[in-house]
């Protein structure tokens, strides 16, 4: 894996890649400086060049990286394929096909008996990312199921019982629909409430009855939908989906002391929240705690 931290922060899309440092810019700016300063600029330029040199993929367009990564995948050069496709994402490019191929690269490395610890988690994260970008991607969905089944099988081999993390009831309710869906539903019921109020004021008896029934029903639905919208909004804004990319991670408190209980297994999808230093707050089902930042892969935030 390249040096990309398991963080979001991809500043631009594939159509607008991050601008690269221009090698010609340094002498031009240095030409107006004093000789000592010029030397300092020169050294800095050399250092930057050395830093950028290993990342051969950085200097390439995302489409080119994707092509190279896909070709390497076809040729069985899985490490190279993973590097290229990670570089694709490092440039801020997001595409479900690239994410899928990246996950495939990790899976193929495992199949080739060259897998490294965390490859299953990274594969699952890549497939999750592909599904987030393209929810109807059947290939990614199937691949994710295979990876999760393999993780469960390996856990079973280690004598660990399968633990199903269930979200809390509020998260379950909020997660039934998107924030926009809750908002639109609330707006519809607000409209129905208005209609009900109008009908109540009509002189016609049947319309009055319809209004008397409609308005409290719409009001009750509205009172239920508003918290759901607020909850969904809060979850969307304060948390980010993430996937565990180490064999297992124990939840800890802010000081790093383990909270105990079962560890969160590899490839488990969690909700990441606040970050403090090298720790990030995650929620796995009904449990919450802090984990090291490098143990999870933050997925693309839509």
């Amino acid at each position: 894996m390249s040096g990309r931290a398991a963080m979001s922060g991809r500043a631009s899309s594939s159509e607008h890649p991050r601008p690269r440092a221009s090698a010609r810019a340094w002498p031009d700016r240095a030409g107006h400086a004093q000789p000592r300063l010029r030397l300092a600029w020169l050294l800095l330029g050399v250092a930057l060049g050395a830093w950028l040199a290993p990342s051969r993929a950085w200097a390439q367009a995302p489409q080119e990286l994707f092509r190279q990564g896909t070709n390497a995948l076809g040729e069985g050069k899985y490490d190279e394929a993973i590097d290229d496709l990670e570089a694709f994402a490092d440039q801020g490019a997001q595409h479900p096909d690239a994410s899928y191929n990246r996950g495939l690269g990790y899976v193929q490395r495992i199949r080739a008996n060259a897998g490294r610890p965390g490859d299953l988690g990274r594969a699952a994260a890549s497939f999750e990312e592909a599904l987030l970008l393209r929810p109807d991607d059947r290939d990614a969905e199937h691949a994710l199921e295979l990876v999760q089944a393999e993780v469960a099988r390996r856990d079973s081999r280690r004598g660990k019982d399968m633990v199903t993390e269930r979200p809390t009831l509020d998260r379950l309710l909020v997660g039934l629909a998107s924030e926009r869906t809750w908002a639109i539903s609330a707006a519809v019921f607000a409209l129905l409430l208005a209609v009900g109020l109008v009908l109540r004021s009509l002189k016609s008896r049947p319309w009055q009855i319809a209004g008397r029934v409609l308005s409290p029903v719409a009001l009750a639905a509205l009172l239920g939908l508003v918290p759901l919208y607020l909850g969904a909004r809060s979850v969307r804004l304060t948390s980010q989906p993430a996937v565990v990319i180490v064999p297992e991670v124990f939840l800890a408190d802010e000081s790093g002391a383990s909270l105990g209980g079962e560890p969160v297994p590899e490839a488990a999808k969690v909700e990441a929240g606040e970050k403090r230093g090298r720790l990030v707050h995650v929620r796995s089902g009904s449990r919450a705690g802090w984990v090291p930042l490098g143990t999870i892969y933050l997925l693309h935030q839509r």
Partner: protein
Amino acid sequence: MRLAWLLLCSVLLALCAGPRLARAQPSGADVSASLSTDEAEVGEPFTVELRAMVEGDSLPSDAQLYVPSGIDVSGPSVSTRVMSRFGSGGTYVKRGIGATWQLVAQRPGSYVIPAPTVMVGGERITAGRSMRVHVVPATGRPRSRPSTSPFGFPSPFGMPGGSSPFPFGIDSMLDNEPADEPRTTMGEEAQKLAMPIEPEPYVFVRAIADKTEAVVGEQVTLSFYVYYRADFEMTDRREPSLSDFIRVSMMQSPGADAPITTQVGNWRYLVRLLDRVALFPLRAGKLHTGSLGALFTGARVGHRVERSSNDLVVDVREPPRKGRPPGYRLGDVGSYRISAEVAPREIAADGTVAVQLRLQGIGNVPQSIDVPERAGIEWIDPERKGETTITAGRVGGWQTFGYVVRVRDPGNVYLGEVVLPTYDPDRKEYAVARVDLGNVQVRGGTVAPRPAGSVGADDDAKKERADPFASIGPAKLSLRPFDRAGDPGMAPRTFWSLVLVPPMLVLLGGGLGRGWRALRRRQALRRQDPATLASRALGDLSRAKGAKDQASAAERVVHLSIEAATGLKARGVLLTDLGQELENRGLERPLSEEVCAVLGLCSDVRFEPSPDRAAGEQISGRARQLVARISKARAARPAPTAAPPASVRGAQP
């Protein structure tokens, strides 16, 4: 003749002895009866108890008791029991029944109660001899009855099968009397079981925990006792929920322990251990154990009376954060040690070794254990075995994990170390049980040949190694277009606008409409207000040209002014009565007289054929002055209740 006498005597003897011989108790039958008291008061209940035990499969049945007139009888209450004895003196099993009748004497006297009978093996057996009871007149005072029961053995409570008959002698044994024995004579356990008051009469169930504070995973021993001082049968036992605990039963044969005599309030009770379980809390918090309940039936207790134990609350905390080792799993509490066997120590590359981990100790032995993850080493399928033991009231045991470990890379491979962090509540500190698995020498080259006919780990491993990703899809060769639309959410401003605006608009519209209608209604009322009409009439008076018109206008102005000021419709009142009426309504006499005078003048001018123009002007002037005075008078006095008049605008001359 002598021979005839001898024959007759023989027949008579046979007739007399026959039934007695027939009623002789069969071999092994033990039938007896007792009376709870030999002296009772009129109306005071007392009991006759029959006990019949026989060897063999047949059970005594059909217990009967005939009582003399003057005594009412109810019952019998029948229960069964099994009594076994195993020892050097031999083994036998006796089955039997107990029958209890309740008797109440209706009048004083001395009564002989025939012994009860019971059918045993097809024969009716009489239980001992008849009993005598002396009944005295009722005094209303509580009586003390001496113990006469011959049965000193306890209830066979807790028999397997769910129903626990309790037929014999408890009433007689405990005698239902306040204990006169000082508490200091009780044993240590009896003192622990003693209670200051009895929560429920005659029989109740009590739960006792050895501790009420624990950490998650620490053993809490919960004991259920039944306290009784009367005969009972227990049925329909309902176990406590214990949903927040792992439960391990600690009793081999519930109900078989000897009862303990203790003191509850002023009563002497027998206490029998009903059940004892070790609980291991699953989470932190104030956890309820729930209640153990059952239905009790007895002569004194009642029929199917429900009794439930107390619901205990255990305050469960997490082990301390301080000093908690990494990898500690909540609930791993106790004191353990791990041992390991690794064999063989030398294998070919991609071969397997068997690693047998044994975890043993005190506590709820963990059901899984973390194995070291190392590159090139694959741990396959642990085979688990375990046993739970109870030693000195502490749950413990062992658990083994049999692993097959595949080592891919050749060389001297270090397998790693197995660690299990636990919390020891006795020492209040964490401990880490660990075992070093050591090294395995892995030869390079091909896989070692499998011994002929050997099956097992390698075959299983081969199955496991079947490609789990065989059905994964191919790589995507191009970046296909995709819709980036996800859930952009909705801005709160937009949301609240959509939610609040429609109902607010409707409410606002409704309010405005209601306000407009109220305004219209108010305007309509004001148009009909006498003050307003009077004001208009003053304008008409100014515009009137002829004397008659002026008189008519002045008359209307005065009438409307009076109505506005007093609420009186003066047009319907005779002029002769008007003055008095106005005074009644609060106008001063001079003003009311002036009113009458002006109205009279108006009437005169109106009915005069050719009135003088000056008279019209005079009326007009006087009417204006009068209206102004009425208006002042109205302002000075409280408004009339009938029709609150508005101020008469423009009434000033």
